[in-house]
């Protein structure tokens, strides 16, 4: 199943995890220490984030470290910018329509 990146960041715990590992790479245990939820539930969130390619894993000795895939997060911003641009274009067109309507009314 293809994961929707927006689904990934729709969850508050997952957003908190993103904020945590944005600062430094962390092990699942260290991440779980920051939450009241179980280690198991944190693992589940990490799995979803990994499937969305929002986080990457790195083996260091016996530990696995999770870190943020900044590039992927920027994709979201880029996408939102484009969406904003779509509306800008739309509204500039509407300005013209309104200006024509005003002239016709006079």
């Amino acid at each position, binding site marked *: 199943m293809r994961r*929707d990146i*927006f*689904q990934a*960041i*729709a*969850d*508050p715990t997952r*957003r908190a995890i993103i904020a945590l590992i944005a600062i430094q790479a962390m092990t699942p245990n260290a991440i779980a220490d920051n939450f009241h939820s179980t280690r198991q539930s944190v693992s589940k969130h990490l799995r979803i984030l990994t499937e969305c390619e929002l986080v990457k894993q790195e083996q260091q000795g016996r530990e696995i470290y999770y870190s943020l895939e900044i590039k992927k997060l920027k994709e979201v911003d880029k*996408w*939102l910018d*484009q*969406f*904003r641009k*779509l*509306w*800008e*274009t*739309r*509204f*500039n*067109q*509407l*300005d*013209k*329509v*309104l*200006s024509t*309507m*005003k002239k016709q*009314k006079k």
Partner: protein
Amino acid sequence: MNNDLLFDFTVDKSKKTVYITREFDAELSLVWDAFTKAELIDQWIAPAPMTAKTKYQDFKVGGKRFYAMISPDGKESWAIQEYTSITPKTNFKMYNAFADENENAQLPGSEWDHTFSEENGTTKVFITIYNESLERMERILDGFTIGMRMSLENLENLLTTLSKK
């Protein structure tokens, strides 16, 4: 064009909602018409180079607007809107869903809420769009981006042709 007009666009991903506020340099009744009368909507709703055409519209609660966005190569993307609430010149809500050319809606769609207010001849429109699936929004954008790219290609071709002469 008046550049002092407010334009605010925010997305709350956790609420799957887009919030858009825009001011227009026109009285409320004109802006209301531009948002609710198909022959006017078709003139601005499709971001160029896309165009829009409404097959039919029945602007009343429970009524529908069936329309297509048309890409520069003539590909039609149909959608259907059902008006769920109308308070004349103040607010209207609708449910929007992609459809095929035979009006079969593809659910889930999105819930749209428009609020209009006027102050000193400037009309403010506040729009919220709730999307059950944000992936769906991605699809809207894909069409738009493809359309943009195609029109740029058309322009390039035209320029190439012209420069050859």
